[in-house]
């Protein structure tokens, strides 16, 4: 039965739509990247609590990122973006002091070269380490010259650049309309009473459809056990009235757990505060129930466009187009049958 906005659009009570008649309020994460310090405590706490296998310990040439992206074995991923622009409203107090360039153009070249050799274009990151058999390359870091040195490689005041560091702890979005959940053919993925999306590991047969159904590249199939894995929003802890491990471990409250309605209010207040303080680039990502996935259960405060953090700027749940796709398939099937019948009528002997 298709209820209103069951496939697409704003949905007030997502748990009830999934069949939970009496259920607790919808919960989620508000990840405020403006206070993230990139400590990765969330990554570690998640792995410890959920017994998630390791995904490689190398730094990837993307600043201090060593998990790359979310995947079967990375349910929290801290992204590091280095930019040569000042943080909004920031007074560094080092206007006249020399600082070094971030060296990011070099790193970008190195990363791009490694990507070309990756079997899945680098999207295996978060699931298993990138197998690249290339000799280590000199990233040009760390290379310091004495403050005030002049000349070509001197980092004197004339070579000083603006600099800001964006850090973001990414996580499964627990969408209102979850692409992974919609396409799962076994019912392994389900909507919990808390409105979150969880894989039942005893049901999943590793068909891999959810991997391609997710518009955010979150869920992946593990080569270790052949099943799909992703953040459960600590379903077990929720049952005991505890907050998820990552939120518990976050030392700056960048990761906030709570009822979704309350989190949305809090996030809007935070954006207003930041705008007042001159951080005009602060914006929310995923909190809008009118977006392509009906709003996400885990949403973010970002300081730049989503794609800078590796997030899709305008994700849409593929299920939105399900009626149109089946209509086209139906017409094609009818044409197929007509051609067959016509073939026999046309070649009567």
């Amino acid at each position: 039965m298709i209820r209103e906005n069951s496939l697409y659009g704003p949905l007030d009570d997502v748990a009830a739509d999934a069949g939970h008649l009496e259920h607790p309020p919808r919960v989620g994460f508000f990840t405020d990247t403006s206070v993230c310090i990139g400590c990765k405590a969330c990554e570690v706490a998640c792995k410890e609590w959920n017994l998630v296998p390791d995904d490689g310990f190398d730094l990837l040439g993307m600043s201090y990122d060593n998990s790359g992206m979310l995947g079967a074995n990375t349910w929290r991923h801290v992204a590091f973006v280095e930019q040569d622009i000042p943080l909004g409203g920031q007074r560094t107090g080092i206007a006249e002091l020399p600082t070094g360039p971030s060296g990011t153009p070099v790193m970008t070249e190195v990363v791009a070269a490694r990507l070309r050799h990756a079997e899945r274009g680098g999207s295996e990151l978060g699931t298993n380490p990138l197998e690249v058999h290339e000799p280590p390359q000199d990233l040009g870091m760390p290379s310091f010259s004495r403050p005030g040195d002049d000349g070509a490689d001197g980092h004197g005041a004339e070579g000083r650049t603006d600099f800001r560091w964006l850090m973001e702890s990414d996580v499964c979005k627990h969408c209102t309309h979850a692409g992974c959940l919609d396409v799962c053919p076994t019912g392994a993925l389900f909507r919990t009473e808390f409105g979150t999306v969880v894989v039942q590991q005893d049901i999943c047969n590793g068909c891999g459809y959810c991997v391609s159904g997710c518009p955010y590249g979150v869920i992946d199939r593990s080569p270790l056990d052949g099943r799909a894995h992703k953040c459960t929003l600590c379903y077990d802890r929720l049952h005991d009235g505890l907050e998820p491990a990552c939120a518990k471990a976050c030392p700056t409250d960048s990761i906030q757990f709570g009822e979704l309605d309350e989190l949305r209010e809090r996030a809007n207040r935070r954006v207003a505060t930041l705008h007042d303080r001159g951080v005009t680039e602060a914006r929310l990502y995923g909190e809008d129930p009118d977006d392509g996935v009906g709003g996400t259960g885990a949403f973010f405060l970002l300081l730049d466009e989503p794609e800078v953090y590796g997030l899709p700027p305008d994700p849409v749940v593929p299920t939105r187009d399900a009626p149109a796709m089946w209509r086209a398939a139906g017409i094609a099937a009818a044409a197929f049958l007509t051609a067959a019948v016509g073939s026999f009528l046309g070649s009567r002997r």
Partner: protein
Amino acid sequence: MSTSDVDPARLVRHGRDGRRAGAVQREVVPAADFRSYYGRPVIKAPVWEWKVPAYLFTGGLAAGSAVLAAGADLSGRPALRRAGWLGSLAALLASVVFLVTDLGRPERFHHMLRVAKPTSPMSVGTWILTAFGPGVGLAAIAELLPRRLRPTVLGRLLRRSARPAGLASAVFAPGVASYTAVLLSHTAVPAWHGAREQLPFVFSGSAAAASGGLMMALTPVEEAGPARWFAASGAVGELAASKVLEERLHPVVREAYTTGRAHRLRRCSEGLTVAGLAGTVLGARRSRAVSVGSGLALVVAGALQRFGVFEAGIASTKDPRYVVVPQRERLVQRSHG
């Protein structure tokens, strides 16, 4: 700040082959400026391997052969009927092997049967195949029944139920041929989701062309008339739908189809389809050799088409531009009202 002096880490521009686009590279479509997280993919590349496009092909082959076999049964063409049911069963068995072995946990394949889920094309497909398969099996076994077993009770029951069972399967066959397009399109993969309106026609046409071609190769020319018609109409449909598909795509997403391996596979498919179509229309009525040759060309073309479309999808996940550029454009358009 202007876009000319931004840090490349913020503005990683890629050419078609993943190299950073420079002034030396000539692009059909100007490389759209976009930003990404160090050029890393936004969405996951599908975990599916070659078995999935192989199934897309054999599934279509099974469907088309079944329809031709059912028609041959009704119109009294025993050779076409026999080839049709046997070809359909062989393709179906191959399909099942491909589908099960592509799972991460093949021993759990039957978990597909614990739910019927309209929002999952794979679930819908599972049930279409479940409805389609047994009839094909029954009809094919009836064809293989040794002469001495025919008078037995079981033998007579089998031969009598073969026609209704086969016809029932033929009813589901068009679904088998076209649902696989939805299977691919119902994903976040830009090249598959973007082609959602045309892909069912490409796949159905390709299924008709390939199965008609297979029957042309396996059946004497006197009985293969319907197979020729079916193959020719399928080939025309596939060629037309394939052109429309490329035209209607977003110009950036189109590059997933018009460059690299996907492009080469689909151009080979197109060439073989045109050759097979010409042979079918011009010479297959008179010469068995021409019939076999053009039939096999269409079979191979069908396989290449599926592998080409599959590859285009994979390519469109590996480069973030296929995801970011169209979505960014949508946002810009929306903000302009």
